[in-house]
Protein backbone atom coordinates (compact mmCIF):
# COMPACT_ATOMS: atom_id res chain seq x y z
CA UNK A 1 0.00 0.00 0.00
CA UNK A 2 1.60 3.20 -1.15
CA UNK A 3 1.51 6.24 1.11
CA UNK A 4 2.30 9.81 0.13
CA UNK A 5 3.72 12.77 2.05
CA UNK A 6 2.14 15.89 0.59
CA UNK A 7 1.88 19.59 1.29
CA UNK A 8 -1.86 20.03 0.98
CA UNK A 9 -3.55 23.40 0.61
CA UNK A 10 -6.69 23.88 2.68
CA UNK A 11 -9.41 24.71 0.17
CA UNK A 12 -12.32 24.88 2.57
CA UNK A 13 -12.92 25.16 6.30
CA UNK A 14 -16.33 24.52 7.83
CA UNK A 15 -17.57 24.82 11.38
CA UNK A 16 -20.14 22.12 12.04
CA UNK A 17 -20.89 22.83 15.67
CA UNK A 18 -19.06 24.05 18.72
CA UNK A 19 -15.41 23.10 18.24
CA UNK A 20 -16.22 20.75 15.35
CA UNK A 21 -14.46 21.46 12.09
CA UNK A 22 -14.25 20.01 8.61
CA UNK A 23 -11.19 20.77 6.50
CA UNK A 24 -10.96 20.04 2.80
CA UNK A 25 -7.42 19.40 1.62
CA UNK A 26 -5.95 19.40 -1.86
CA UNK A 27 -4.02 16.13 -1.89
CA UNK A 28 -5.03 14.34 -5.10
CA UNK A 29 -2.56 11.43 -4.81
CA UNK A 30 -3.84 10.64 -1.34
CA UNK A 31 -7.46 11.03 -2.46
CA UNK A 32 -7.05 8.71 -5.41
CA UNK A 33 -5.54 5.91 -3.37
CA UNK A 34 -7.73 6.24 -0.29
CA UNK A 35 -9.96 3.40 0.87
CA UNK A 36 -12.85 3.96 3.30
CA UNK A 37 -11.68 3.49 6.89
CA UNK A 38 -8.11 4.56 6.21
CA UNK A 39 -6.57 7.57 7.90
CA UNK A 40 -4.05 10.36 7.37
CA UNK A 41 -1.36 11.75 9.69
CA UNK A 42 -1.35 15.55 9.82
CA UNK A 43 1.38 17.85 11.11
CA UNK A 44 -0.44 20.55 13.06
CA UNK A 45 2.37 23.11 13.39
CA UNK A 46 5.63 23.97 11.67
CA UNK A 47 7.79 23.74 14.81
CA UNK A 48 8.32 20.85 17.21
CA UNK A 49 5.66 21.63 19.83
CA UNK A 50 3.55 19.57 19.49
CA UNK A 51 6.06 17.24 17.90
CA UNK A 52 4.01 14.39 16.51
CA UNK A 53 1.52 14.23 13.70
CA UNK A 54 -2.12 13.64 14.58
CA UNK A 55 -4.16 10.81 13.05
CA UNK A 56 -7.52 11.56 11.43
CA UNK A 57 -9.83 9.22 9.60
CA UNK A 58 -10.50 10.11 6.02
CA UNK A 59 -13.93 11.63 6.41
CA UNK A 60 -14.79 11.90 2.76
CA UNK A 61 -13.17 12.06 -0.67
CA UNK A 62 -14.84 14.74 -2.75
CA UNK A 63 -15.73 14.30 -6.39
CA UNK A 64 -12.76 16.45 -7.36
CA UNK A 65 -10.28 14.29 -5.48
CA UNK A 66 -9.96 16.33 -2.31
CA UNK A 67 -9.49 14.81 1.12
CA UNK A 68 -11.75 15.83 3.99
CA UNK A 69 -11.11 15.42 7.69
CA UNK A 70 -13.64 16.05 10.43
CA UNK A 71 -12.44 16.72 13.94
CA UNK A 72 -13.12 18.19 17.29
CA UNK A 73 -10.73 20.77 18.75
CA UNK A 74 -9.84 19.05 22.02
CA UNK A 75 -6.18 19.50 22.77
CA UNK A 76 -3.08 21.28 21.55
CA UNK A 77 -2.90 19.79 18.07
CA UNK A 78 -6.56 19.88 17.13
CA UNK A 79 -6.86 23.45 18.42
CA UNK A 80 -3.98 24.46 16.15
CA UNK A 81 -5.64 22.71 13.21
CA UNK A 82 -8.89 24.50 13.96
CA UNK A 83 -7.02 27.78 13.51
CA UNK A 84 -5.74 26.97 10.04
CA UNK A 85 -7.21 29.25 7.39
CA UNK A 86 -8.21 28.56 3.80
CA UNK A 87 -5.17 28.96 1.57
CA UNK A 88 -2.70 27.77 4.20
CA UNK A 89 -1.17 24.35 3.76
CA UNK A 90 -0.66 21.30 5.90
CA UNK A 91 1.83 18.46 5.66
CA UNK A 92 -0.23 15.28 5.32
CA UNK A 93 0.84 11.63 5.09
CA UNK A 94 -1.57 9.00 3.81
CA UNK A 95 -3.60 7.06 3.04
CA UNK A 96 -2.63 4.75 5.90
CA UNK A 97 -3.86 1.57 7.53
CA UNK A 98 -6.47 -0.99 6.54
CA UNK A 99 -10.02 0.20 6.05
CA UNK A 100 -13.43 -1.44 6.12
CA UNK A 101 -14.02 -4.81 4.44
CA UNK A 102 -17.13 -5.22 2.30
CA UNK A 103 -20.26 -6.52 4.00
CA UNK A 104 -21.19 -10.18 3.61
CA UNK A 105 -24.87 -9.32 4.03
CA UNK A 106 -27.35 -7.06 2.30
CA UNK A 107 -28.24 -5.10 5.44
CA UNK A 108 -25.58 -2.68 6.67
CA UNK A 109 -25.67 -0.80 9.94
CA UNK A 110 -23.20 2.02 10.58
CA UNK A 111 -22.81 3.00 14.23
CA UNK A 112 -20.97 6.23 14.94
CA UNK A 113 -20.33 8.03 18.19
CA UNK A 114 -18.92 11.55 18.37
CA UNK A 115 -16.05 12.09 15.97
CA UNK A 116 -16.22 8.37 15.23
CA UNK A 117 -18.87 9.40 12.74
CA UNK A 118 -16.11 10.86 10.53
CA UNK A 119 -15.06 7.80 8.48
CA UNK A 120 -18.62 6.52 8.08
CA UNK A 121 -19.32 9.18 5.45
CA UNK A 122 -16.63 7.90 3.11
CA UNK A 123 -17.72 4.33 3.75
CA UNK A 124 -21.42 5.08 3.20
CA UNK A 125 -20.69 6.88 -0.08
CA UNK A 126 -18.55 3.99 -1.19
CA UNK A 127 -21.25 1.44 -0.39
CA UNK A 128 -23.91 3.49 -2.14
CA UNK A 129 -21.76 3.81 -5.22
CA UNK A 130 -20.94 0.11 -5.32
CA UNK A 131 -24.30 -0.42 -6.98
CA UNK A 132 -25.01 -3.50 -4.86
CA UNK A 133 -28.58 -3.49 -3.65
CA UNK A 134 -28.50 -3.08 0.08
CA UNK A 135 -30.20 -1.37 2.97
CA UNK A 136 -27.99 1.00 4.95
CA UNK A 137 -28.97 2.34 8.32
CA UNK A 138 -26.86 4.88 10.24
CA UNK A 139 -27.12 5.09 14.02
CA UNK A 140 -25.42 8.26 15.18
CA UNK A 141 -24.74 9.37 18.73
CA UNK A 142 -23.27 12.45 20.36
CA UNK A 143 -23.54 14.44 23.54
CA UNK A 144 -25.88 17.13 22.26
CA UNK A 145 -27.95 18.27 19.30
CA UNK A 146 -25.32 20.99 18.76
CA UNK A 147 -22.73 18.30 18.09
CA UNK A 148 -24.89 15.98 16.05
CA UNK A 149 -27.45 17.94 14.06
CA UNK A 150 -25.45 18.96 11.01
CA UNK A 151 -23.63 15.63 10.78
CA UNK A 152 -26.91 13.71 10.97
CA UNK A 153 -28.50 15.84 8.26
CA UNK A 154 -25.41 15.55 6.01
CA UNK A 155 -25.59 11.80 6.45
CA UNK A 156 -29.30 11.75 5.59
CA UNK A 157 -28.52 13.76 2.47
CA UNK A 158 -26.32 10.95 1.25
CA UNK A 159 -29.54 8.96 1.08
CA UNK A 160 -29.26 6.83 4.21
CA UNK A 161 -31.81 6.20 6.94
CA UNK A 162 -30.46 7.93 10.00
CA UNK A 163 -31.40 7.52 13.67
CA UNK A 164 -29.89 9.76 16.28
CA UNK A 165 -29.20 9.52 19.98
CA UNK A 166 -27.93 12.22 22.32
CA UNK A 167 -26.78 12.05 25.91
CA UNK A 168 -29.02 14.97 26.84
CA UNK A 169 -31.96 13.96 24.68
CA UNK A 170 -31.80 17.17 22.67
CA UNK A 171 -31.92 15.20 19.43
CA UNK A 172 -33.41 11.74 18.79
CA UNK A 173 -33.19 9.04 21.41
CA UNK A 174 -32.32 10.23 24.91
CA UNK A 175 -29.49 7.86 25.75
CA UNK A 176 -26.76 5.84 24.14
CA UNK A 177 -26.49 5.12 20.44
CA UNK A 178 -25.98 1.47 21.36
CA UNK A 179 -29.57 1.34 22.57
CA UNK A 180 -30.68 1.89 18.95
CA UNK A 181 -29.17 -1.42 17.92
CA UNK A 182 -32.25 -3.03 19.44
CA UNK A 183 -34.20 -1.55 16.50
CA UNK A 184 -32.46 -3.93 14.13
CA UNK A 185 -34.73 -6.60 15.55
CA UNK A 186 -33.94 -10.28 15.46
CA UNK A 187 -32.91 -10.16 11.77
CA UNK A 188 -29.36 -11.60 11.78
CA UNK A 189 -28.45 -10.44 8.27
CA UNK A 190 -26.91 -7.14 9.35
CA UNK A 191 -23.24 -6.26 8.96
CA UNK A 192 -22.31 -3.74 11.60
CA UNK A 193 -19.53 -1.11 11.35
CA UNK A 194 -18.78 0.80 14.52
CA UNK A 195 -16.57 3.77 15.15
CA UNK A 196 -16.52 5.93 18.25
CA UNK A 197 -15.46 5.96 21.88
CA UNK A 198 -14.03 2.70 23.17
CA UNK A 199 -16.92 1.83 25.54
CA UNK A 200 -19.39 2.33 22.70
CA UNK A 201 -17.45 0.06 20.36
CA UNK A 202 -17.06 -2.49 23.09
CA UNK A 203 -20.82 -2.55 23.68
CA UNK A 204 -21.56 -2.83 19.96
CA UNK A 205 -18.97 -5.57 19.52
CA UNK A 206 -20.36 -7.53 22.46
CA UNK A 207 -23.93 -7.38 21.19
CA UNK A 208 -22.91 -8.35 17.67
CA UNK A 209 -20.73 -11.22 18.77
CA UNK A 210 -23.57 -12.45 20.98
CA UNK A 211 -26.11 -12.28 18.15
CA UNK A 212 -23.75 -13.63 15.52
CA UNK A 213 -23.69 -10.48 13.43
CA UNK A 214 -20.43 -9.68 11.64
CA UNK A 215 -18.99 -6.52 13.19
CA UNK A 216 -16.04 -4.34 12.29
CA UNK A 217 -14.70 -1.69 14.66
CA UNK A 218 -12.33 1.19 14.00
CA UNK A 219 -9.98 1.57 16.95
CA UNK A 220 -8.01 4.57 18.21
CA UNK A 221 -4.76 4.57 20.19
CA UNK A 222 -1.84 6.85 20.75
CA UNK A 223 0.24 6.83 17.57
CA UNK A 224 3.71 8.18 16.98
CA UNK A 225 4.17 7.32 13.31
CA UNK A 226 1.10 5.80 11.65
CA UNK A 227 3.58 3.97 9.41
CA UNK A 228 3.98 0.64 11.20
CA UNK A 229 7.46 1.71 12.27
CA UNK A 230 7.28 2.70 15.93
CA UNK A 231 5.09 -0.18 17.15
CA UNK A 232 3.50 2.28 19.54
CA UNK A 233 -0.11 1.67 18.51
CA UNK A 234 -0.49 -1.80 19.99
CA UNK A 235 -3.84 -3.20 21.17
CA UNK A 236 -4.13 -6.64 22.74
CA UNK A 237 -4.98 -9.30 20.22
CA UNK A 238 -7.48 -12.07 20.84
CA UNK A 239 -5.09 -14.63 19.45
CA UNK A 240 -2.36 -15.50 21.92
CA UNK A 241 -0.38 -13.05 23.97
CA UNK A 242 0.50 -10.71 21.11
CA UNK A 243 -0.67 -7.34 19.95
CA UNK A 244 -2.37 -5.89 16.91
CA UNK A 245 -1.14 -2.59 15.53
CA UNK A 246 -3.83 -0.04 14.87
CA UNK A 247 -1.93 1.68 12.05
CA UNK A 248 -1.02 -1.53 10.27
CA UNK A 249 -3.53 -4.34 10.80
CA UNK A 250 -6.13 -1.64 11.60
CA UNK A 251 -7.56 0.83 12.34
CA UNK A 252 -10.48 -1.38 11.27
CA UNK A 253 -10.60 -4.81 12.91
CA UNK A 254 -13.08 -7.61 13.02
CA UNK A 255 -14.60 -7.40 16.51
CA UNK A 256 -13.61 -10.98 17.25
CA UNK A 257 -9.91 -10.34 16.57
CA UNK A 258 -9.64 -7.82 19.41
CA UNK A 259 -9.10 -8.86 23.04
CA UNK A 260 -11.88 -6.91 24.75
CA UNK A 261 -11.48 -6.44 28.51
Amino acid at each position, binding site marked *: *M*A*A*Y*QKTATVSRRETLGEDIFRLTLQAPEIARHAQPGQFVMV*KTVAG*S*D*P*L*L*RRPFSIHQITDDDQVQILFKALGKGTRLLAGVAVGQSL*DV*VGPLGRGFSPPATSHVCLVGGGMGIAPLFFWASHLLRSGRPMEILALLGARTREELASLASDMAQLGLSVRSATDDGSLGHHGLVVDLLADLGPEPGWSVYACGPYPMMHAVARQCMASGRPCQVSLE*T*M*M*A*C*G*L*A*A*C*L*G*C*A*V*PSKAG*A*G*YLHVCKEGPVFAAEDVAWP
Partner: protein
Amino acid sequence: MAVIPDLRVRIGALAMANPVMTASGTFGYGEEFASLVNLARLGAIVVKGISLEPRAGNPPPRVAETACGMLNAIGLENVGLERFIAEKLPFLKGIHAPVVVNILGDSIDDYQRLASRLQMVPEVAAIEVNISCPNVKHGGVAFGTDPAMARAVTEAVRAAFDRTVLVKLSPNVTEITEIALAVEAGGADAVSLINTLLGMAIDIRTRRPRLANIVGGLSGPAVKPVALRMVWQVARAVRIPVVGIGGIATAEDAIEFLLAGATAVQVGTANFVNPRATEEIIDGIAAYLQAGNMASVQEIIGGLRS
Protein backbone atom coordinates in the same frame (compact mmCIF):
# COMPACT_ATOMS: atom_id res chain seq x y z
CA MET B 1 30.87 25.39 -6.57
CA ALA B 2 29.69 23.09 -9.32
CA VAL B 3 31.54 20.13 -7.83
CA ILE B 4 29.28 17.59 -6.14
CA PRO B 5 30.75 17.06 -2.70
CA ASP B 6 31.95 13.62 -1.69
CA LEU B 7 29.74 12.44 1.14
CA ARG B 8 31.29 9.00 1.60
CA VAL B 9 32.30 7.82 5.05
CA ARG B 10 33.59 4.53 6.48
CA ILE B 11 32.88 2.85 9.76
CA GLY B 12 35.23 -0.06 10.13
CA ALA B 13 34.77 -2.08 6.95
CA LEU B 14 31.36 -0.55 6.32
CA ALA B 15 31.53 1.91 3.44
CA MET B 16 28.58 4.27 3.17
CA ALA B 17 27.59 6.60 0.34
CA ASN B 18 26.82 9.29 2.89
CA PRO B 19 26.78 9.67 6.68
CA VAL B 20 23.01 9.45 7.12
CA MET B 21 21.62 6.25 8.65
CA THR B 22 18.24 5.45 10.15
CA ALA B 23 18.04 4.81 13.90
CA SER B 24 16.91 1.44 15.16
CA GLY B 25 13.24 1.17 16.05
CA THR B 26 12.21 4.23 14.10
CA PHE B 27 12.29 2.90 10.55
CA GLY B 28 10.76 -0.53 10.95
CA TYR B 29 12.46 -3.02 8.68
CA GLY B 30 12.83 -0.48 5.86
CA GLU B 31 9.85 -1.68 3.88
CA GLU B 32 7.47 0.56 5.83
CA PHE B 33 9.09 3.66 4.27
CA ALA B 34 9.53 2.30 0.76
CA SER B 35 6.80 4.47 -0.75
CA LEU B 36 7.95 7.63 1.08
CA VAL B 37 11.75 7.55 0.86
CA ASN B 38 14.19 6.51 -1.83
CA LEU B 39 15.81 3.84 0.31
CA ALA B 40 18.74 3.41 -2.05
CA ARG B 41 19.98 6.86 -1.10
CA LEU B 42 20.44 6.07 2.59
CA GLY B 43 23.92 5.74 4.04
CA ALA B 44 22.66 2.64 5.83
CA ILE B 45 19.47 1.22 7.29
CA VAL B 46 19.54 0.15 10.91
CA VAL B 47 16.62 -2.15 11.60
CA LYS B 48 14.48 -2.54 14.71
CA GLY B 49 16.30 -4.39 17.51
CA ILE B 50 16.25 -8.17 17.05
CA SER B 51 16.38 -10.78 19.79
CA LEU B 52 16.88 -14.54 19.53
CA GLU B 53 13.21 -15.24 20.10
CA PRO B 54 10.24 -13.09 19.04
CA ARG B 55 9.02 -10.66 21.70
CA ALA B 56 5.47 -9.41 22.08
CA GLY B 57 6.48 -6.16 23.76
CA ASN B 58 4.83 -4.13 26.50
CA PRO B 59 1.11 -3.53 26.98
CA PRO B 60 -0.29 -0.21 25.73
CA PRO B 61 -0.10 2.73 26.06
CA ARG B 62 3.43 2.50 24.70
CA VAL B 63 4.06 6.05 23.51
CA ALA B 64 3.39 9.51 24.87
CA GLU B 65 4.20 12.94 23.55
CA THR B 66 6.27 15.40 25.61
CA ALA B 67 7.58 18.90 24.90
CA CYS B 68 9.58 18.61 21.67
CA GLY B 69 9.96 14.92 22.33
CA MET B 70 8.27 11.61 22.93
CA LEU B 71 8.48 8.74 25.38
CA ASN B 72 8.35 5.13 24.27
CA ALA B 73 8.17 1.84 26.08
CA ILE B 74 7.67 -0.53 23.18
CA GLY B 75 9.33 -3.27 25.16
CA LEU B 76 11.47 -4.42 22.27
CA GLU B 77 8.66 -6.06 20.33
CA ASN B 78 10.27 -7.83 17.38
CA VAL B 79 9.83 -10.82 15.11
CA GLY B 80 12.89 -12.65 16.40
CA LEU B 81 16.09 -13.54 14.59
CA GLU B 82 14.92 -16.35 12.34
CA ARG B 83 11.78 -14.64 11.10
CA PHE B 84 13.83 -11.49 10.54
CA ILE B 85 16.20 -13.41 8.30
CA ALA B 86 13.43 -15.27 6.51
CA GLU B 87 10.81 -12.53 6.15
CA LYS B 88 12.43 -9.13 6.42
CA LEU B 89 15.91 -9.50 5.00
CA PRO B 90 14.86 -10.48 1.45
CA PHE B 91 13.30 -7.03 0.93
CA LEU B 92 16.32 -5.28 2.42
CA LYS B 93 18.70 -7.16 0.11
CA GLY B 94 17.15 -5.43 -2.86
CA ILE B 95 17.53 -1.84 -1.83
CA HIS B 96 21.25 -1.18 -2.34
CA ALA B 97 21.79 0.42 1.06
CA PRO B 98 23.88 -1.40 3.66
CA VAL B 99 21.85 -3.19 6.32
CA VAL B 100 22.83 -2.87 9.97
CA VAL B 101 21.14 -5.24 12.40
CA ASN B 102 20.53 -3.92 15.89
CA ILE B 103 20.65 -6.80 18.41
CA LEU B 104 19.61 -7.17 22.00
CA GLY B 105 19.78 -9.93 24.52
CA ASP B 106 19.41 -10.80 28.16
CA SER B 107 22.83 -12.41 28.54
CA ILE B 108 26.27 -12.36 26.96
CA ASP B 109 25.45 -15.72 25.50
CA ASP B 110 22.34 -14.31 23.78
CA TYR B 111 24.43 -11.60 22.14
CA GLN B 112 27.05 -14.07 21.02
CA ARG B 113 24.48 -16.42 19.51
CA LEU B 114 22.85 -13.52 17.64
CA ALA B 115 26.23 -12.46 16.28
CA SER B 116 27.24 -16.00 15.26
CA ARG B 117 24.05 -16.49 13.32
CA LEU B 118 24.33 -13.11 11.58
CA GLN B 119 27.93 -13.91 10.66
CA MET B 120 26.43 -16.53 8.35
CA VAL B 121 24.19 -13.96 6.63
CA PRO B 122 26.31 -12.05 4.13
CA GLU B 123 23.67 -9.37 3.49
CA VAL B 124 24.22 -8.05 7.00
CA ALA B 125 26.86 -5.34 6.65
CA ALA B 126 27.17 -4.60 10.35
CA ILE B 127 25.80 -5.32 13.78
CA GLU B 128 24.78 -2.61 16.19
CA VAL B 129 24.81 -3.95 19.73
CA ASN B 130 22.08 -2.40 21.84
CA ILE B 131 23.36 -2.47 25.40
CA SER B 132 21.31 0.53 26.35
CA CYS B 133 17.61 0.08 25.93
CA PRO B 134 15.96 1.19 29.15
CA ASN B 135 12.88 -0.92 28.64
CA VAL B 136 14.14 -4.37 29.56
CA LYS B 137 14.45 -5.17 33.21
CA HIS B 138 17.46 -7.43 32.89
CA GLY B 139 20.60 -7.44 30.81
CA GLY B 140 20.16 -4.31 28.72
CA VAL B 141 20.19 -1.80 31.52
CA ALA B 142 23.15 -3.21 33.42
CA PHE B 143 25.30 -3.82 30.33
CA GLY B 144 25.04 -0.21 29.28
CA THR B 145 25.85 1.34 32.62
CA ASP B 146 28.73 -0.87 33.75
CA PRO B 147 32.06 -0.56 31.87
CA ALA B 148 33.18 -4.14 32.56
CA MET B 149 29.93 -5.67 31.36
CA ALA B 150 29.79 -3.39 28.34
CA ARG B 151 33.25 -4.57 27.41
CA ALA B 152 32.37 -8.21 27.91
CA VAL B 153 29.36 -8.02 25.58
CA THR B 154 31.45 -6.25 22.97
CA GLU B 155 34.14 -8.92 23.14
CA ALA B 156 31.58 -11.67 22.75
CA VAL B 157 30.06 -10.11 19.63
CA ARG B 158 33.49 -9.20 18.25
CA ALA B 159 34.62 -12.82 18.56
CA ALA B 160 31.61 -14.08 16.62
CA PHE B 161 31.23 -11.48 13.87
CA ASP B 162 34.01 -10.36 11.57
CA ARG B 163 32.32 -7.46 9.83
CA THR B 164 31.60 -4.04 11.41
CA VAL B 165 30.48 -4.00 15.04
CA LEU B 166 28.93 -0.83 16.45
CA VAL B 167 28.05 -0.65 20.13
CA LYS B 168 25.17 1.64 21.04
CA LEU B 169 25.55 3.47 24.33
CA SER B 170 23.02 4.49 26.95
CA PRO B 171 23.06 8.16 27.99
CA ASN B 172 21.78 7.35 31.47
CA VAL B 173 25.25 7.28 33.00
CA THR B 174 27.50 9.61 34.97
CA GLU B 175 30.50 9.23 32.66
CA ILE B 176 29.72 8.28 29.09
CA THR B 177 33.40 8.32 28.08
CA GLU B 178 34.15 5.56 30.57
CA ILE B 179 31.69 3.23 28.82
CA ALA B 180 32.90 4.28 25.39
CA LEU B 181 36.51 3.52 26.29
CA ALA B 182 35.52 0.12 27.68
CA VAL B 183 33.69 -0.76 24.49
CA GLU B 184 36.61 0.42 22.36
CA ALA B 185 38.91 -1.80 24.40
CA GLY B 186 36.46 -4.66 23.80
CA GLY B 187 37.04 -4.40 20.06
CA ALA B 188 34.13 -2.30 18.80
CA ASP B 189 34.65 -0.72 15.39
CA ALA B 190 32.52 2.24 16.41
CA VAL B 191 30.21 3.54 19.10
CA SER B 192 26.77 4.93 18.38
CA LEU B 193 25.08 7.25 20.84
CA ILE B 194 22.72 8.16 22.31
CA ASN B 195 19.92 5.76 22.98
CA THR B 196 16.93 7.26 24.81
CA LEU B 197 17.02 9.11 28.14
CA LEU B 198 14.89 7.50 30.82
CA GLY B 199 11.79 9.62 31.39
CA MET B 200 8.21 9.64 32.59
CA ALA B 201 4.90 11.45 32.12
CA ILE B 202 1.68 11.42 34.12
CA ASP B 203 -1.92 12.01 33.06
CA ILE B 204 -3.22 14.23 35.85
CA ARG B 205 -6.82 13.49 34.93
CA THR B 206 -6.52 9.75 35.55
CA ARG B 207 -3.52 10.12 37.92
CA ARG B 208 -1.84 7.31 36.03
CA PRO B 209 1.48 7.16 34.20
CA ARG B 210 1.05 7.85 30.49
CA LEU B 211 2.96 4.64 29.72
CA ALA B 212 1.80 1.25 30.98
CA ASN B 213 5.46 0.55 31.73
CA ILE B 214 5.51 3.74 33.93
CA VAL B 215 8.92 4.87 32.63
CA GLY B 216 10.11 4.98 29.04
CA GLY B 217 12.74 6.33 26.71
CA LEU B 218 12.79 10.02 25.78
CA SER B 219 13.75 10.89 22.19
CA GLY B 220 13.33 13.70 19.70
CA PRO B 221 14.56 17.32 19.49
CA ALA B 222 14.34 17.72 23.27
CA VAL B 223 17.33 15.41 23.82
CA LYS B 224 19.59 16.85 21.13
CA PRO B 225 21.71 19.07 23.42
CA VAL B 226 22.48 16.12 25.71
CA ALA B 227 23.28 13.84 22.77
CA LEU B 228 25.53 16.41 21.13
CA ARG B 229 27.45 16.98 24.36
CA MET B 230 28.02 13.24 24.80
CA VAL B 231 29.08 12.76 21.18
CA TRP B 232 31.57 15.60 21.58
CA GLN B 233 32.94 14.13 24.82
CA VAL B 234 33.22 10.62 23.40
CA ALA B 235 34.73 11.71 20.07
CA ARG B 236 37.56 13.35 22.01
CA ALA B 237 38.07 10.28 24.19
CA VAL B 238 38.11 7.37 21.73
CA ARG B 239 39.94 6.66 18.49
CA ILE B 240 37.17 4.67 16.78
CA PRO B 241 34.43 6.44 14.81
CA VAL B 242 31.41 7.81 16.61
CA VAL B 243 27.88 7.69 15.19
CA GLY B 244 25.78 10.58 16.52
CA ILE B 245 22.11 10.02 17.41
CA GLY B 246 19.54 12.06 19.27
CA GLY B 247 16.97 14.57 18.07
CA ILE B 248 18.39 14.95 14.59
CA ALA B 249 15.61 16.31 12.37
CA THR B 250 17.35 18.63 9.90
CA ALA B 251 20.62 18.94 8.02
CA GLU B 252 21.65 21.65 10.50
CA ASP B 253 21.23 19.19 13.35
CA ALA B 254 23.25 16.53 11.53
CA ILE B 255 26.03 19.01 10.75
CA GLU B 256 26.26 19.94 14.44
CA PHE B 257 26.96 16.28 15.23
CA LEU B 258 29.52 15.97 12.44
CA LEU B 259 31.30 19.12 13.65
CA ALA B 260 31.28 17.68 17.17
CA GLY B 261 33.19 14.68 15.87
CA ALA B 262 30.62 12.18 14.61
CA THR B 263 31.60 10.28 11.45
CA ALA B 264 27.95 9.50 10.71
CA VAL B 265 24.54 10.20 12.18
CA GLN B 266 21.31 8.32 12.70
CA VAL B 267 17.88 9.83 12.28
CA GLY B 268 15.26 8.48 14.67
CA THR B 269 12.06 10.12 15.88
CA ALA B 270 12.25 12.59 12.98
CA ASN B 271 11.20 9.77 10.63
CA PHE B 272 7.82 9.76 12.36
CA VAL B 273 7.39 13.52 12.08
CA ASN B 274 8.76 13.95 8.59
CA PRO B 275 9.19 10.66 6.72
CA ARG B 276 11.36 12.48 4.18
CA ALA B 277 13.80 13.64 6.87
CA THR B 278 16.70 11.37 5.91
CA GLU B 279 16.72 12.43 2.26
CA GLU B 280 16.37 16.09 3.18
CA ILE B 281 19.32 15.75 5.54
CA ILE B 282 21.50 14.15 2.87
CA ASP B 283 20.65 16.98 0.47
CA GLY B 284 21.18 19.61 3.14
CA ILE B 285 24.64 18.34 4.08
CA ALA B 286 25.64 18.41 0.41
CA ALA B 287 24.30 21.96 0.06
CA TYR B 288 26.19 23.11 3.17
CA LEU B 289 29.44 21.68 1.84
CA GLN B 290 28.87 23.26 -1.55
CA ALA B 291 28.06 26.64 -0.05
CA GLY B 292 31.32 26.46 1.91
CA ASN B 293 33.31 25.26 -1.09
CA MET B 294 34.17 21.99 0.59
CA ALA B 295 34.91 18.94 -1.52
CA SER B 296 34.21 16.31 1.10
CA VAL B 297 32.23 15.73 4.25
CA GLN B 298 35.54 14.78 5.86
CA GLU B 299 36.28 18.51 6.04
CA ILE B 300 33.62 19.06 8.68
CA ILE B 301 33.90 15.89 10.76
CA GLY B 302 35.33 17.03 14.08
CA GLY B 303 35.66 20.54 12.65
CA LEU B 304 34.37 22.38 15.71
CA ARG B 305 36.36 25.56 16.39
CA SER B 306 36.82 26.74 19.92
